[in-house]
Every structure is written in structure tokens, then in C-alpha cells.
């Protein structure tokens, strides 16, 4: 592959990967995505020497003006969004810059700017990512960044050393930078394989850093919030027809739950049938006006919760009490004992709704992670509703709440809900007439603006029904008979109230209309009701034995106060058939998402400690939480010292192995030389050592005869002998000339005379 092409390809792939990774976070407007998709391929053909490249070069001044205008616009938009800062305009600006720089790439500086911008885009993707898809983008990004940065560095070096000389064989050859850049010999498959291996190591190292850097959560400046996923229908007000439109395409996961009672069902069909009938209760509203449900927020309807700290793992349990329920300790305990347990995980959601199977009795909030500065706790609302709340806490004492936060990042908790098949509510509630006067007024209130024909309709539908339960059945039966289900809503704008429009004009609607109609018709016939938003059903994941609830399962229903039976769910919406089991691919993705969420996005100091403990146990260390009597014995002090010494010695040997090998080689060479040296050589070396000690060493650059000539310039004892010795040495050392034994003996004897005068 030509070097220039490899570098260009790497640059485009790197930029494309970062843009693609950010695009998966669903925050960019479609216009931005479309423009990037259009101009990104165009920029490939904008090389400096092409007509397109020259066009962009000519337009540099205008494009600089466009950059300034774009930047000013982005700054203005961001400034206008204060205090809820929206950085989307900056993201659009960065996308514009990336594509522009790709079109205007002429110098190394342009390429460097592309890399910096790509990194910023990748950072934004890391900030906004909620999906496991990010990890695919990250892996690709690391691989491509390694390749591209190496190629970029080489390119810059080539251009800095514009003219280089290669003389690999014989003669120097001048080559220009252009020729090197077009060479196929600089990088090839081995280069990409080796740098790819480096990228893999970088990824492993990144994972190690990720796992080991302590999560202390300082929260100095930014508060540390992630962008949550906003889902309509769970705000303080719910407007009919304006939100909550259910789309089967909306696959955003809202919550995941493990329900042991469901997991225990062996038959798949039966299990799916049970899952399809699970009602996940969320928000409750009691006031209806002009097509909008809201909460009256009166103290008498406020949910009562009692906090209990469990000694087991310092989690905090909350017992819920309906304000209209007769509070008997035995009744509540009996209900909790037979309750359906759920482990619920709320995925990043903008509204802190405490979802639970209808009807929750007890919430158990886990203790905040070790070292965390935030915690999620339960908060009472109204009409038997509770919500979640994030608090800043003292890390030293996780139960010391310091400040409530407006942000919400999701939560995980345990809930026990009433099992209607084993737990009866009869006797737990007073009849309507036994309650204090006005106790249920909120749930009977109907707006005065509602047309009188709605009341007439209610009377007509419930005529002849003596009890509240019978009235509820009649209303449900009437609604299902007269109206169909549709998500394609129609609306007659001449009628002010959408409920009247639904009751008298339209023939179909979705759950919000059915629930609202049932609630209002029952109120008009004297039955207290409240409006509930939540989810219906879910999808079973075999791989991890959990239920996943997506946004497209949002549902609304009514709760009616049926005397001593208390609040009973009344779902007037016609039954819908939706698959209660995921496909295999989706199960796999969902499991990955779960792992990603727990071990990456929400990785915390607690999980770090857990991992460290597990690792310590694997290595045989005894620590806190280690079960007594299991695992190897701890080392004694003596053994520990020996192990430490061995480890240190090993480190020294490994780190200094080259030096040791060099010493050994030097010793062996010297010994071998000594063994094989001819006698006259040994005599000469001994004499040299003596002369050196006397202050006349032989210089490394001197030949024996040059050394002799130098010594002759000064008084030298035994000069004739040293002259003979030098001749004999040079002959023996370099000419392989044998010296007769008698001559050797004479030289050995006479060499003692050689020396410098004192």
C-alpha cells in the first residue's frame, strides 16, 4: 500500500469512526447527520492537487468567515440555553469543522487538527453514550488512532527531512519527500499487524486503567451528571394526545427486572403469559382538567412511608402505607410475606420514577457505593406513589444526606409487591361511607368545564349498577364495546376537551384515552378514581433470566376505590397482543447492554473493592470479608521476608540481565584470551600493565610501534628490550609468527628491566 494512501485512508476511517460513534448516541439532529453524510465522502476527493481541493483552497477566506459565523451562532445558542446548558450547537460546530478540515487538508497541521477534532467528538460520544455500541466504536477508534498517528508522525518526519539520502546498497541517491510518500516499501502488512497488536495492548491497558483508577467521585466542578434519556408520560402533568404516543419502533430500555416468581415458572408459554400481564406502576394523578392530568399535592393524599435500616447490608427499607388503608401490623406483614419480589434496575431516565409491579408494599434501597458522593433514596409522593431522589451524601457516612439533586441517573433497588393471587385486600380498607367526609374528594372531582352530556353518558352507562365494582365493570364494557384501539390518533379541534372528543366523536384511541374516560365516567357516577401511568408487560431474556421493559410498552390505567376492597386496578384499554420474549440476537444485545450498564457505565468503587477481594482470594490473600477456614494459610513473617527477598532478587536479575550477561561474556572472553594467548603476548601485556601503572599507558588509538616511538621520546629503561618485545609481540599477535622458546625465555627474563626512571 502506498504510504500516502494508507495515511489518507487511516485519517478518514478515524474521523468516520468518531463521527459514527457519536451518531449512535441519538443526540445529533438529523440535519447534521445528513450534511455530514453528504460532505464526508466528498472530502475524500478534495486532495490538494485535485480541482476540488483547489476549489476549497480558493474558498479559504469565505470558509473562514463561515467558521466565525458558525462559532458565533453556537456561542449565542449555548449562552441562551443557560442555566440548563445545551452543548448541541458546539457539537454541530465540531462536526462542521471536521468535514471542513477534511476538505481543506493540505499540510500536516490540517491533519493534526482533524485528529484533535475527532478526539473531541469521541469524548462527546463517551460523555453521551448509553449503549454498548460505544465499545465497538472505541475499539475501532483505538485501532485506527494507533495506525493513523504512527503514519502521521512518519509523514511529518518525511516532510521535515524533505531531502533524505538513502545509501542502502552502494551509492547515495537523493530522493524527495514526494517520492517517499508514494513508496510502497515504507509500510506494509507487517507494519499494520504490529501496530494493530500495539492497539490491542493499548485497549487492554485502557481496560486495566479503567478498572483500577479509584472512583472517588470528587464532583468539584461539574457535578458529574450524565445526559439521561427523557421519556414522556412521567412528568408532573400528562396531557392527553400531546405525549405518550406509543410506537412499536421505540426500543429504548426503561427498566430491567429480575422477578424470582416469574423465573421459577418452567413453562415458557405460561411464563410469557404472566409477563404480558405484569403492570409496572409508575406515576399517579388525581386531578383532571382540560385534557390534562396532574397531582393536587394535598397532604391528606400523601403516601406514608416508614424507613427501616436493615442490618444485613446496611440497605434501607421503606414500608408503604396507603392513606386510606386500615393500618394493622399483622395485615401488612402478612402481605409482605407473600409478596412478589423484584430486583429492579432503572436505566438512565430523566424522571426519577420508582417503578414496581402493581401494587408495591416495600422498597429496599441498597446502600450507596463505597466512596460515592451521591446516593439514591426513596421519597413519598401522593396517591400511594413514591419516587426516587438523588442526594449528595457524606462519603464517610453514606446515610448522611446533604443536598437533594435535581439530576437522576437511574437506580437499582428491590421491591416487594402485593401478590393479588394470595393476598386479599378485603378488610384492609374502609367503605367509602365510613371514611371521613371529603377524604376522597380529590378522586371525585370533575372539571366544571366538562360538558353536561359526559355526566349524562356516565349515568346512562352505569344505570342500574348498585355497587362501585359493577359500575366499573359497566364502564369498561361500554368503552371496549364502543371504541377501538389505535395509535394513529385523530382529533376534532372544534371540541376543546380531547376526552369529550374521544367519547362522542372518535371511535378509537389509545390507553391514555381509555384510562381517562374510565376515570371520569366513574367519578361522574360516584366512584373515586385515579389515573396511573406505567408499563404493561415486558420481554423475557433467557440468557440472564430477566424481564426487559422498553418504552413502547408504556401504558395507562385507572385505579378505582371499590369500598372495602380498596383501590383496584381498572384497565379499560382493549387487550393488546405483543411478543413477551426477545429474539436471540436481541437477547444477546440486551445481556451485553446489562453488562455494559453494570460494569462499565455504573462501575463504582464498590465494584472495584469487590474485584480486588475476588482477586485477593484467587491469589490466596486473606482480607476483610474472607471466609474463615477456607483458602490457603497466610504466610508467616519469616516466609513473607523470604518471598519478598526472592521477588526483589528476581527483579534485580531481570532488570540487570544485560549487564550481567555482559560481565559474564567479558570474563569468559578474558579467560579464553588468557588461555590461548601466546607466551610473548602475555609478557607484552604484563609489561604494558607495569608501564601503565608507572604513568605511561598505551592509548587506545596507538599501535604497538607508535607506542614504542612515543616512549622512545622520553627516558626509558630497557629500551632495546622493549623494542625487541614490541617486534615479537606484533609478529605473534598480528602476523602469527612463532617466537622461538629461547627468545621467549630471554624476553621474559629481560622484560623486568623495562620501566620508567624514577
Amino acid at each position, binding site marked *: 500500500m502506498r504510504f500516502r494512501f494508507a495515511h489518507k485512508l487511516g485519517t478518514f476511517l478515524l474521523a468516520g469512526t468518531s463521527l459514527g460513534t457519536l451518531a449512535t448516541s441519538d443526540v445529533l439532529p438529523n440535519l447534521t447527520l445528513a450534511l455530514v453524510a453528504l460532505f464526508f465522502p466528498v472530502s475524500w476527493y478534495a486532495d490538494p492537487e485535485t480541482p476540488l481541493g483547489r476549489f476549497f483552497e480558493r474558498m479559504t477566506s469565505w470558509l473562514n468567515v463561515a467558521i466565525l459565523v458558525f462559532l458565533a451562532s453556537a456561542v449565542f445558542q449555548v449562552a441562551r440555553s443557560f442555566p440548563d446548558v445545551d452543548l448541541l450547537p458546539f457539537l454541530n460546530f465540531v462536526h462542521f469543522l471536521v468535514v471542513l478540515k477534511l476538505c481543506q487538508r493540505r499540510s500536516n497541521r490540517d491533519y493534526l487538527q482533524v485528529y484533535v477534532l475527532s478526539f473531541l467528538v*469521541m*469524548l462527546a460520544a*463517551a*460523555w453521551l*453514550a448509553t449503549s454498548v455500541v*460505544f465499545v465497538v466504536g*472505541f475499539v475501532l477508534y*483505538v485501532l485506527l*488512532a*494507533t495506525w493513523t*498517528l*504512527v503514519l*502521521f*508522525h*512518519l509523514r*511529518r*518526519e*518525511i516532510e521535515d*527531512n524533505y531531502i*533524505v*539520502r*538513502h*545509501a*542502502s546498497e552502494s551509492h*547515495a541517491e537523493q530522493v524527495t519527500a514526494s517520492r*517517499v510518500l508514494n513508496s510502497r*516499501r*515504507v509500510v506494509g502488512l507487517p507494519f499494520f499487524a*504490529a*501496530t494493530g497488536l*500495539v492497539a490491542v*495492548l*493499548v*485497549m487492554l*491497558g*485502557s*481496560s*486495566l*486503567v*479503567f478498572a483500577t*483508577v479509584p*472512583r*472517588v*467521585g*470528587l*464532583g*468539584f*466542578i*461539574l*457535578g*458529574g*451528571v*450524565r445526559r439521561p434519556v427523557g421519556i414522556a408520560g412521567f412528568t408532573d402533568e400528562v396531557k392527553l394526545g400531546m405525549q405518550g404516543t406509543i410506537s412499536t419502533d421505540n426500543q429504548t430500555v426503561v427498566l430491567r427486572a429480575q422477578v424470582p416468581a416469574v423465573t421459577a415458572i418452567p413453562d415458557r408459554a405460561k411464563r410469557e403469559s404472566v409477563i404480558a400481564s405484569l403492570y409496572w406502576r409508575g406515576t399517579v394523578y388525581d386531578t383532571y382538567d382540560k385534557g390534562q392530568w396532574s397531582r393536587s399535592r394535598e397532604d391528606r393524599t400523601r403516601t406514608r412511608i416508614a424507613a427501616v435500616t436493615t442490618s444485613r447490608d446496611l440497605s434501607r427499607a421503606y414500608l408503604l402505607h396507603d392513606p386510606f388503608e386500615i393500618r394493622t401490623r399483622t395485615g401488612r406483614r402478612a402481605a409482605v410475606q407473600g409478596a412478589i419480589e423484584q430486583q429492579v434496575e432503572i436505566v438512565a431516565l430523566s424522571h426519577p420514577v420508582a417503578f414496581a409491579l402493581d401494587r408495591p408494599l416495600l422498597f429496599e434501597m441498597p446502600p450507596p457505593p463505597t466512596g*460515592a*458522593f451521591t446516593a439514591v433514596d426513596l421519597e413519598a409522593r401522593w396517591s400511594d406513589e413514591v419516587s426516587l431522589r438523588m442526594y449528595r451524601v457524606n462519603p464517610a457516612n453514606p446515610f448522611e444526606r446533604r443536598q437533594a439533586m435535581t439530576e437522576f441517573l437511574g437506580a437499582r433497588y428491590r421491591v416487594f409487591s402485593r401478590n393479588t393471587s394470595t393476598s386479599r385486600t378485603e378488610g384492609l380498607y374502609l367503605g367509602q361511607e365510613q371514611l371521613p367526609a371529603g377524604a376522597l374528594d380529590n378522586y371525585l372531582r370533575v372539571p366544571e368545564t366538562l360538558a353536561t352530556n359526559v355526566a349524562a353518558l356516565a349515568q346512562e352507562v352505569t344505570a342500574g349498577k348498585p355497587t362501585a365494582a359493577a359500575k366499573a365493570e359497566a364502564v369498561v364494557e361500554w368503552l371496549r364495546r364502543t371504541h377501538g384501539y389505535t395509535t394513529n390518533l385523530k382529533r376534532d379541534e372544534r371540541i376543546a376537551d380531547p376526552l369529550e372528543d374521544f367519547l362522542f366523536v372518535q371511535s378509537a384511541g389509545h390507553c391514555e384515552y381509555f384510562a381517562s374516560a374510565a376515570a371520569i365516567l366513574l367519578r361522574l357516577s360516584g366512584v373515586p378514581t385515579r389515573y396511573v401511568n406505567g408499563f404493561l408487560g415486558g420481554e423475557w431474556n433467557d440468557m440472564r433470566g430477566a424481564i426487559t421493559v422498553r418504552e413502547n410498552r408504556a401504558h395507562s390505567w385507572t385505579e378505582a376505590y371499590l369500598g372495602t376492597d380498596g383501590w383496584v386496578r381498572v384497565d379499560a384499554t382493549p387487550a393488546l397482543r405483543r411478543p413477551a420474549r426477545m429474539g436471540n440476537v436481541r437477547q444477546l444485545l440486551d445481556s451485553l447492554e446489562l453488562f455494559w450498564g453494570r460494569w*462499565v*457505565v*455504573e*462501575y463504582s468503587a464498590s465494584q472495584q473493592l469487590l474485584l480486588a477481594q475476588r482477586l485477593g482470594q484467587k491469589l490466596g490473600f486473606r482480607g476483610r470479608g474472607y471466609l474463615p477456614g477456607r483458602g490457603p494459610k497466610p504466610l508467616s513473617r519469616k516466609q513473607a521476608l523470604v518471598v519478598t527477598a526472592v521477588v526483589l532478587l528476581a527483579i534485580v536479575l531481570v532488570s540487570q540481565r544485560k549487564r550481567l550477561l555482559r560481565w559474564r561474556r567479558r570474563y569468559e572472553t578474558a579467560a579464553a584470551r588468557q588461555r590461548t594467548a601466546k607466551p610473548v603476548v602475555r609478557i607484552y601485556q604484563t609489561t604494558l600493565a607495569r608501564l601503565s601503572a608507572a604513568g605511561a599507558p598505551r592509548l587506545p588509538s596507538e599501535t604497538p610501534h607508535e607506542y614504542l616511538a612515543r616512549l622512545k621520546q622520553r627516558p626509558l629503561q630497557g629500551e632495546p628490550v622493549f623494542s625487541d618485545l614490541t617486534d615479537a609481540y606484533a609478529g605473534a599477535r598480528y602476523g602469527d609468527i612463532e617466537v622461538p622458546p629461547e627468545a621467549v625465555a630471554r624476553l621474559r627474563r629481560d622484560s623486568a628491566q623495562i620501566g620508567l626512571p624514577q
Partner: protein
Amino acid sequence: MPPASLRARLRRWFRPPRHFRLTREGRWYVGVTLLLGFAAVNGGINLLFLMFGMLLCLLVANGVLSEASMRGLEVHRQLPPAIHAGSPFLMGISVRNGKARIPTFSLEVEDLAKDGKPVDRRCFFLKIPAHRQQETSYRRTLPRRGIHGLTGLRLSTRFPFGLLRRSLDVEAPADLLAYPALLPVADPILAGGLAQIGEKQSPARARSGDFHGLRELRPGDDPRDIHWRTTARRGRPFVREFEEETGRTVLVVLETGAEFPAEEFETAVSYAASLALALLRRAYRVGLVAGRSFVPPDAGLMQGRDILRCLALVDGTAPSEVGQPSWAAAASTTLIVTPGTGHPRIEAGKDKNLRRLA
């Protein structure tokens, strides 16, 4: 063992001859990495920890790869045959990559001067494959004559990401002897000088004499002596050699003394060198007296080198030996070069009969 030696050995033990420092991009990179680490810790955003880890590991990979790239290298310096002050020369550097598989990329080699600092030029090797040797050279000009010491070679690389510059100093001491700069010698001066020995000089006389043989072209040879047919056949330039003529001996005398300004003396040295080489090219036997140094008259390339070496090292402040009869007798004529303002004074003659030429 002397304390200094012990200290030096200890320093070598604890501080191997490898250095690394951050480049400008590297400093920015480290700054961004720290900032990102702070943002990750501050915000508790786990995916930023992942990005932080990536940046850290790329920095570590930079260090490891640059170390791997610089291992197993053998570097040698190839000194030029002659260096004249003020004239550019090429210093050859050859590097052999002894690694089994890994090529070395983006390697820079610099000569280290006596003060341990690199000289102003360097050699660049883009890629040295495993088990291969490459040679290149850098062009350099020494400003003054004399010995210019080199202590070693510095190998450095910014491979692979340009964030760190890792360098390794290799001991390779060498002394570069810069001969005096050569100046053009005016023909009238040369002709006048040679006329003192009773000969009418012509350019052809320089290449006169009996043909001796052919040899490869060396620096300083007269290009007119190139034997073109052999040069074309062998692919390398060859010149004709002639038997020297006897009886034509010139002694170039350079006057020294503390009274001469340094700049004027240097010009005189250059002029003496140029004069001697010009005479040698004309096949004269040339000798030199400079200060207390004496080069007996002789002919040929080696004589030119001896004269240049003597002039390269001559001390301008040493007392002059002009007037010593021992060397004056060896020459048929004498050219005395005396430092002077603007142009050195040239006198030619025998014994006391000197005639000023310039």
C-alpha cells in the same frame, strides 16, 4: 579509586545513557490527559476513564515502542578524507539494525561535540529494516582550522507518535582535523616565485615528467590529470601519476609571532597552504616551515597532507623560525608568507636575496 571515577561509575549505573523528553505535542498531550483524568474523576463518568486510560496507554506505548525501535543498533561514523575550514564536507553515518524482526523507523543520528551537545546537523533514517545497514551523510562546515573533537553519537527518535523524544548516546570519540581554508593563488605570484629558481613556468609543466601509473582520483588532484579512458572503463575517476622532477624544491615559510592579528594570520595560513598545494600540483618538491614546525621538502599527495596537517595545527603566537640555516639549505628557493593587512606579504628568493611578490 579516585572519587570522581567512582561518581562517574555510579552515575552511569543509575543513569544509563538514555534520555527522553516530551516534545511540544507531548506536553500538550500530557496536559490533555491530566485534564481528562480530572474530568473523569470529578464527574465520575466511567467512559471518560476509558478514554483517559487510552491516552495513558498510548503514552506508555510511545515509550516502549521507541525503546524497541532503538535497540540492537550499531552506528559508525565515516570520516571524510580531508576537511578544509570554511568548505562544506560530508560526514558519513552508517547504521545497522541488528534486530531479528523489528525495523527501526524515524531515526535521527547526531554527532556530539566536546561539550556533549549535538552539532547543528543530523542524519535521518526513515526505515532501517531488520538485519540491514543503511548509510547517509550530513553536510557540515567547520568555521576554523584545527582539531574539532567529537565525543560520540546521539541516536534519537520520536517514533511512533511524536510525543516523546528518546535518545541514546553512543561513545565514539573522534578528532576532526580541519585543514586551512584554501584561497585562489594568483598566477603572477606563482610565476614570480618559480622564476626565482630560474624556470619559466607554464601550466603544462605541472604534469610533466615520466608517466608513472594510474591511480584513483583523490581530493586536491588536478582534474586535468584525469585519465578519461580508464575512468570510463572502471566507472570511477582515475588520474595519471608522473615521476617527480628533481632539483625543483620550494620551501614555503609562514611567519608566526604574537604581533600578528589573528585574522591576518589565518589568511596567511590559508595562503601558505594554497601556495604549497599549487606547487605540489605542479610536481614540485615542497617543504614548509611554520613557527617551530618543519616539514621537509617532498612531492606527492602525502606531502600535501603533511603540510596541511602542519598548517592546521600551527600556533600563530609561536616565535618564528625564519632565518634558521638548517632548513634554508634544503630548498632551491623560499617563499615567505608574512601576515599582513588585507593580503599577506609574499617574498621569494634564496638566502637573503628576497623579492617581494605581493
